[in-house]
């Protein structure tokens, strides 16, 4: 193993994971929306609900397809690129992964198949149940993979076997009850709702500006504004709780996020810190007194350990080495994520307030640009969040137990990695273009196109004449 294979493996994991995650939150959240809309149609027989379920359901499926195929890569690459890791954690990490497949993937894929093919073929109740089960399956899958990821950030319920040097599970319920994982789950499932809400608001606004399908998109917008407000607040609260838990369980990550160099009580919150080119030394900063203490432990005076002291502590405990994550990344991704999080709360709450206050909210000035451009917000926040949480764990792959450099597959050559890295990049790039094109086509065409099961049945738009 040399440093090239390590670096290429890390880039590949980062790229494939971030790309996969561009599609997952929307799947998580939009599934619930579609299920709810279809339920309302079932209850009320109101055609508007039917059109809503059809339209958003179509976008859900286009998005789902990419999420599912890029997800297979995820499950394989632990063994392919990180065999050292797989050997070390298989007893513990493998379990939730296998349970995810057995409990969640089967449910999601089987019932989505029933939902796509079942309309008119299975009883309506069964068809309705299948979309709820598919949505539940996706969210269960997120729960299990976050339990696995939570263990990497905060290992619990294990011992290190002295003979084999591997981690072994001693308490399954400690692993699945890992508080770190459940804060992740809270943050992530709420994030799914927020992502779906912002997509719905943005696309609905686009149609409402053109005064088309007003009933469908007005109702969609109102629903998404309400859910989006609640979800954005929940995402924020989950994030805040995560920060406090991180202060206790991963103090180095916490300090690195804040560019907090020296231990202090109370600790200042950095508004802007400029580091040098290595990203590991501070040059200049503006700071807010005592706010970091509040973020860490809800009071304005507690002590927050600094990066320098922690580095010394870790060297004493784990031996010589660099235990500081790349601070320029942790510091800025956190600030991007947090700023966007606040903007999302503001946008959703404003949209909700306006929809409640004015029946003709779609004529307001802000409506012409804000909801549409706000679609980008959850995407940027999601990318920042995952880069932050995974880069902030460095140099550890399992916090305090195994370093990334010891986890990479020893047999891989740079050539093999270049082939796969370039291959994934090319395929994912093409997929992104095709998927974006289809999303745009179906999103702008409105519910008529989506109402028909296949484009052949009713050529409802220009060019479809076969």
């Amino acid at each position, binding site marked *: 193993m040399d440093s090239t294979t390590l670096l290429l493996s890390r880039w590949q994991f980062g790229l494939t994971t971030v790309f996969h995650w561009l599609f997952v939150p929307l799947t998580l959240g939009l599934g619930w929306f579609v299920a709810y809309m279809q339920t309302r149609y079932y209850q009320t027989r109101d055609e508007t609900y039917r059109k809503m379920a059809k339209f958003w359901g179509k976008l859900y499926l*286009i998005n789902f*397809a990419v999420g*599912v*195929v890029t997800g*297979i*890569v995820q*499950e*394989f690459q*632990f*063994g*392919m690129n990180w*065999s050292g890791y*797989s*050997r070390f*954690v*298989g*007893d*513990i*990490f*493998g*379990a939730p*992964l*296998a*349970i995810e*497949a*057995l409990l969640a993937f*089967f449910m999601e*894929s*089987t*019932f*989505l*198949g*029933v939902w*796509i*093919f*079942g309309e008119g*073929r*299975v009883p309506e109740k069964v068809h309705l149940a299948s979309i709820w089960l598919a949505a539940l399956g996706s969210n269960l899958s997120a729960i299990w993979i976050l339990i696995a990821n939570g263990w990497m950030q905060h290992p619990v319920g294990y011992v290190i*076997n002295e003979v084999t040097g591997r981690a*072994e*599970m001693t308490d399954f319920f400690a692993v699945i009850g890992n508080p770190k994982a459940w804060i992740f789950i809270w943050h992530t499932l709420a994030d799914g709702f927020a992502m779906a809400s912002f997509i719905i608001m943005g696309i609905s606004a686009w149609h409402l500006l053109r005064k088309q399908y007003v009933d469908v998109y007005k109702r969609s917008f109102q629903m998404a504004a309400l859910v989006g407000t609640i979800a954005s607040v929940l995402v924020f609260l989950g994030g805040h709780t995560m920060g406090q838990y991180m202060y206790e369980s991963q103090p180095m990550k916490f300090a690195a996020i804040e560019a907090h160099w020296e231990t202090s009580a109370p600790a200042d919150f950095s508004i802007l810190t400029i580091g040098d080119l290595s990203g590991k030394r501070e040059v200049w900063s503006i700071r807010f007194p005592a706010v970091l203490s509040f973020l860490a432990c809800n009071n304005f005076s507690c002590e927050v350990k600094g990066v320098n002291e922690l580095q010394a502590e870790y060297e004493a405990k784990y031996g010589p080495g660099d235990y500081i994550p790349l601070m320029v990344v942790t510091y800025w991704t956190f600030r991007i994520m947090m700023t966007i999080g606040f903007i999302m709360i503001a946008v959703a709450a404003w949209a909700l307030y306006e929809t409640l206050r004015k029946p003709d909210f779609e004529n307001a000035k802000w409506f012409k640009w804000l909801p549409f451009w706000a679609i980008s917000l959850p995407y940027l926040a999601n990318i920042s969040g995952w880069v932050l949480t995974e880069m902030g764990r460095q140099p550890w792959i399992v916090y305090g137990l195994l370093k990334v450099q010891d986890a990479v*597959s*020893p*047999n891989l*050559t740079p050539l*093999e990695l270049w*082939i*796969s890295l370039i*291959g994934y990049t090319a*395929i994912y790039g093409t997929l992104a273009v*095709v998927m974006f094109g289809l999303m745009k*086509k179906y999103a702008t065409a409105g519910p008529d196109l989506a109402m028909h*099961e*296949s*484009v*052949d*049945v009713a*050529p409802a738009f220009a060019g*479809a*004449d076969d």
Partner: protein
Amino acid sequence: MSHQTLQTIWFILIAILWIGFFFLEGFDFGVGMLLPFLGKTDEERRAIINTIGSVWDGNEVWLLTAGGATFAAFPHWYATMFSGFYLALFLLLVGLILRGVSFEYRSKNPDPKWRNRFDWMIFTGSLLPSVLLGTAFANLLRGVPIDQSMTYTGNLFTLLNPYGLLGGLTTTAVFLLHGANFLSLKLDGKLREEARAAAGKIWGVAVVLYILLAIFTYISGYWARGMVNPGIAPITALVVLLAAGYTIRQKMEGWSFALVALNIVLTQVTFFSLMFPNVMISSLNPAWNLTIYNASSSQYTLTVMSIVALIFVPIVLAYQGWTYYMFRKRISTDKKSLVY
């Protein structure tokens, strides 16, 4: 339960997952490979895709579950095999990616060029995994270079030996046959006849390859490394494959499908019997083999996973079986009845 019993149970469970995968995704892959050849018009191709439209994704999960279960129950097996077969698995993933999006995206644009492109992606995405899985499994039986630290020391070309390639070709031929039988069961009218005719032609090729593979396995002594005698499984596998030739000619579609399915199941039973208790055979030194004993998880993990499997496997089987029952009707080329 003792650790050894649990290790044996998990070997059997993983074998069952692979058997389920080859049985189910086998016809999926076959259908995908036949698509551009059997389907002359767009309606025909759509009908062919619709035969597996509601189930292919669920079938593929058998592979994911086999992978996940291997990770949880035999981490060293998972680590050695997945890192060792790196480029082969990369190509397999490329195939599955191309295939998976194509089913959903093909119908989203009526342009014949667009659709044709996705049809060939489905073809490629079905062919690649069939060849690669067959090659990989043949190599597992043949043995691959593994050193004393359980690390694979070969590369992609190590796997492309005559036995491995024969395994790949045979698997592909059997999957094609399985797919053609499935189509003759699920389609109607002219397509049904054509699918049956295709099955008749493929059958001859599959039989020849299958016999060659059996002879090769016997002569090279690959059959004599494990501890379990597969008994009548291999000979029965061959007999049912031969019998399928008769039923295909007699237009007994249900029987043909069942016989080839049985051939796939028995071939896998033979494979796993010949492997046991090894999971990866080292061609360098038999002492460096990965076995269910030196590659497994702790007793605690295996116990937990056994309980989980005991509860959820029956549930999964029940609802997946139910969907096949739900969509048991034949598919026609009538546009109104098609989804994809």
